[in-house]
């Protein structure tokens, strides 16, 4: 009986074996990348808001401090969304007749709150507190990116647990001096020895907990 398969068919078998391994890992890798991508995390997806509010204009062009509107960022879990009255501090005279600001004026008149679309939406099972991060030297731009360059705000980080842990495991790579916390231009150190030493100094100075405390489950899931 003649052989059905020629010897060269072994190529096929070999390719299949290696191919299976490759395909398996490739599938896992693709799955992981999709899970980390903006499609899944919402990063870099611009959210259209009820009002065309531009952080680029208010922060970048006008130089208004973050805390003017996000008043409670240093003292409470939520950074604080400004009441309509805070918008009206300036806009009762500036752009007072603009049709873009009609929802703001209406809200001011009838007391009905503006409905913003949440951009950075952490899962409800994760506890997050702005004030502790601000007071330990984690800057706005570390998590929120260059807000002063965003006409429409989008998330720049994945907000996934692995991303949180990146800093909780080694805060010295990300902490900055407190006076730079609201500085949009501050860049994370590029991990030369001296810069890591500076980070470690800050870590001691601000009494930042050890990684085993920072990465304990109940630190964020409480």
């Amino acid at each position, binding site marked *: 009986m003649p052989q059905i398969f020629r*010897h*060269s068919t*072994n*190529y096929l*078998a*070999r390719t299949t074996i290696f191919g299976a391994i490759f395909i398996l890992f490739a*599938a*896992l890798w693709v*799955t992981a990348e*999709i*899970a980390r991508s903006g499609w*899944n995390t919402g990063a870099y997806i611009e959210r259209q808001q009820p009002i065309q509010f531009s952080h680029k204009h208010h922060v970048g062009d*006008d*130089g*208004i*401090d973050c*805390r*003017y509107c996000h*008043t409670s960022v240093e003292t409470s*879990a*939520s950074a604080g*969304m400004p*009441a309509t*009255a*805070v918008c*009206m*501090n*300036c806009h*009762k*005279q*500036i752009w007072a007749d603009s049709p873009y600001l009609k929802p703001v004026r209406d809200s001011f008149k009838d*007391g*009905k*709150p503006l*409905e913003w679309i*949440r951009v950075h939406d952490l*899962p*409800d*099972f994760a506890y997050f507190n702005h004030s502790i991060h601000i007071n330990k030297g984690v800057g706005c731009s570390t998590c929120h990116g260059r807000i002063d360059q965003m006409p429409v705000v989008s998330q720049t980080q994945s907000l996934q647990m692995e991303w949180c842990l990146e800093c909780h495991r080694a805060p010295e790579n990300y902490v900055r001096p407190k006076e730079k916390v609201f500085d949009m231009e501050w860049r994370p150190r590029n991990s030369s020895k001296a810069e890591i030493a500076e980070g470690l100094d800050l870590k001691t100075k601000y009494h930042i907990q050890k990684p085993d405390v920072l990465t304990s489950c109940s630190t964020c899931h409480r």
Partner: protein
Amino acid sequence: MGSSRRFGVRWQAQRDTALDSVWSDRSSADPKRRRRFALPAHSKLVLVLLLLTAHCSLLTGCRRDMQDQPKAIAYRENSFYKDGTGSRPLVEGTVPRGYLRQEREYYTGKKSAAPSATPQTQTAATQSTSTPLYPDDVETIPMTITKADLDRGQERYNIYCSACHGMTGYGDGIVARRGFNKPSPANYHQDRLRQAPAGHFFDVMTNGWGAMPSYASQIPVEDRWRIIAYLRALQLSQQGNSPTVNDRGSSPTVREGSSRK
């Protein structure tokens, strides 16, 4: 070709031994035993496939229930209330613990024993100090001001006040330059405000003044007094002949396009 042939042969041999190990008990009398041997390879495959499927379904939103729990968090809308807000304002007349605020001078900037207020106008500028312009307001800051307080005052001033009043207090902040000028924000370096008691500034920050709204919701009481301390430093810095001016206070920014009153 030779090598591939060798490989093929080797592979063939390996496959044979593998099959032999699986089917080695083919001769076994118990058919169940044979099945037990055969099944693991199959179920492992199923397991792997299941794991892969589970991994994929992670992406598609079976986590949503825990992700968005039906609980009240800051600023989340809540259909239970008529106005739709989950964050509730305090019921009128509520006094939270620690907010009794009995010290009238500290919390209102008004003198404890208030004399009957004399009528006054906002714009009246009195040159003489004999008749006080704001008789109800406390003259000095009712708390001790340290260097740290002054620094904090400067920081808060730059956040909340400088947008309109300018970094040096000439009433020429970015908002004023962009058109908030009916009337223009006050210039601190005028006689009326140089002579105004500390309590006046507190009153303005707390209750608003003219076109300026109340900043009570944005600036806590303690910070209002610290800002006033910094305001005083700003005023001193622009009087030129003051011996107390140091380099911190006397570094004016360039004023653009605004009239100094």
